[in-house]
């Protein structure tokens, strides 16, 4: 496993940045020769993580979202961090179709999609301080 490249991105929690964030990470990932499906998986997972920060962590207020990504010859690691309200019960939040905000048209599928489209998903949170979502996708050695 060799570290090939690394990047960090910070932006405010505006919904117009959802597209920006997923396109940046996909562009970074495409330094490896990935398939369109692999890139779409990454784009979708990043979109879910960033949307969670905007809707849940900051609940309509504006805060900072940071993405830190490392590209290896056989995998990509993407860490999405916010400094919002945090998640009290992570196990419940990760349940498919469970949502704290059904009135906002949320499907409760965010973490399920991250889990399905990536190979690893780790969520840690300190309520009132920060939430860190780490996602890893493995590739055949390029």
């Amino acid at each position, binding site marked *: 496993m060799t570290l090939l490249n690394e990047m960090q991105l910070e932006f405010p929690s505006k*919904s*117009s940045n*959802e*597209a920006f964030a*997923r396109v940046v990470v996909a562009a970074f990932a495409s330094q490896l020769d990935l398939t369109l499906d692999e890139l*779409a998986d990454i*784009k*979708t997972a990043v*979109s*879910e993580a960033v*949307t969670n920060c*905007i*809707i849940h962590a900051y609940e309509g207020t504006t805060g900072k979202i940071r993405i830190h990504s490392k590209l290896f010859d056989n995998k990509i690691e993407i860490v999405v961090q916010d400094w919002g309200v945090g998640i009290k019960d992570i196990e419940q939040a990760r349940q498919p*179709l469970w949502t704290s905000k059904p009135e*906002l*048209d*949320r*499907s*409760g*599928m*965010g973490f*399920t*999609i991250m889990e*399905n489209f990536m190979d690893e998903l780790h969520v840690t949170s300190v309520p009132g301080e920060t939430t860190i979502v780490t996602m890893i996708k493995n590739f055949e050695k390029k």
Partner: protein
Amino acid sequence: MAGTLKIYKDKIIVNLKGELDHHMATILKTQLKEAMDKHNIKKLLFNFKDVTFMDSSGIGMILGRYKELQPIGGKIGVMNMNNRVKKIFDMSGLLSVITYIENEQEFIETF
């Protein structure tokens, strides 16, 4: 514009366009709600032909409309989903309560 709406009596065809994420879903919801209230809409058809990206916010937006239409006997159809969009629909289980429609004609005449 997150999509264009075509209204036929109590039905709307929503031609979605671009990337259906939380940002676009919010715009579309407002646009749709206004038209649905004004025309007493009971049936919606979402056409995914020009959708290049969708995440769970797309499912949430459709689920939200389903919850509004269900009590008044309304229903929802979808058409032209690509494999990526279909994959997310399959994960959500939403296809058990909405209908796959072949073409606009079918929606307008028999749905």
